[in-house]
């Protein structure tokens, strides 16, 4: 049972345009969401997060939007750069359990073409 789903395995975008990566979740107890970026032969690195009390969080070119009623979050990258080409994982946690446990999606491979 996949509680966090990234339904698009891959996405290709032109440099300078917007990249939108999507993530859906099923567990209404999730209250904290994160995006990680992963380059080949490296571990995932934390990118940006959002708490369920917010609907938007912005950090430079990266913005995460949360729609709790739809159980959907998205990561916007504007403008996209070739160095953004990587696998992006969304993750969710239920912090009320105080476990620190994250449930990850399967990842979306972003390719930004020069």
């Amino acid at each position, binding site marked *: 049972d996949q509680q966090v789903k990234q339904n698009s395995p891959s996405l290709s975008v032109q440099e300078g345009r917007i990249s939108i990566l999507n993530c859906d979740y099923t567990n209404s107890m999730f209250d904290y969401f994160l995006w990680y970026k992963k380059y080949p032969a490296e571990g995932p690195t934390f990118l940006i997060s959002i708490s369920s009390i917010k609907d938007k969080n912005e950090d430079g070119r990266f913005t995460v939007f949360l729609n709790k009623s739809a159980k959907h979050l998205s990561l916007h990258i504007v403008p996209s750069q070739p160095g953004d080409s990587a696998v992006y994982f969304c993750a969710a946690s239920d912090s009320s359990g105080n476990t620190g446990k994250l449930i*990850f999606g399967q990842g979306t491979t972003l390719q930004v073409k020069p």
Partner: protein
Amino acid sequence: DARVTQTPRDKVTEMGQEVTMRCQPILGHNTVFWYRQTMMQGLELLAYFRNRAPLDDSGMPKDRFSAEMPDATLATLKIQPSEPRDSAVYFCASAGPGADTQYFGPGTRLTVL
């Protein structure tokens, strides 16, 4: 520059052999996670520890996998005996007290022939 380290980075072994992967969490982090990345499943949580005590190992095949934290600076994941289906990249991650953000190591790429 605090980071999670993992050894070895690459391991090729034959079916039936024992494999031990090691992880050094970031100093001061009290929660350590072991993940496996496969094409089909993405990042699967295998086990995790808090303050060296195992909290959840339900993601691990119990008959062949074992995870331990001999001390606060070392976590180990052992597979005995290894099988070809264990071939994957294994990641260790650590998190500080009360923190949700996990910091990942570079991974161990395991190939079982």
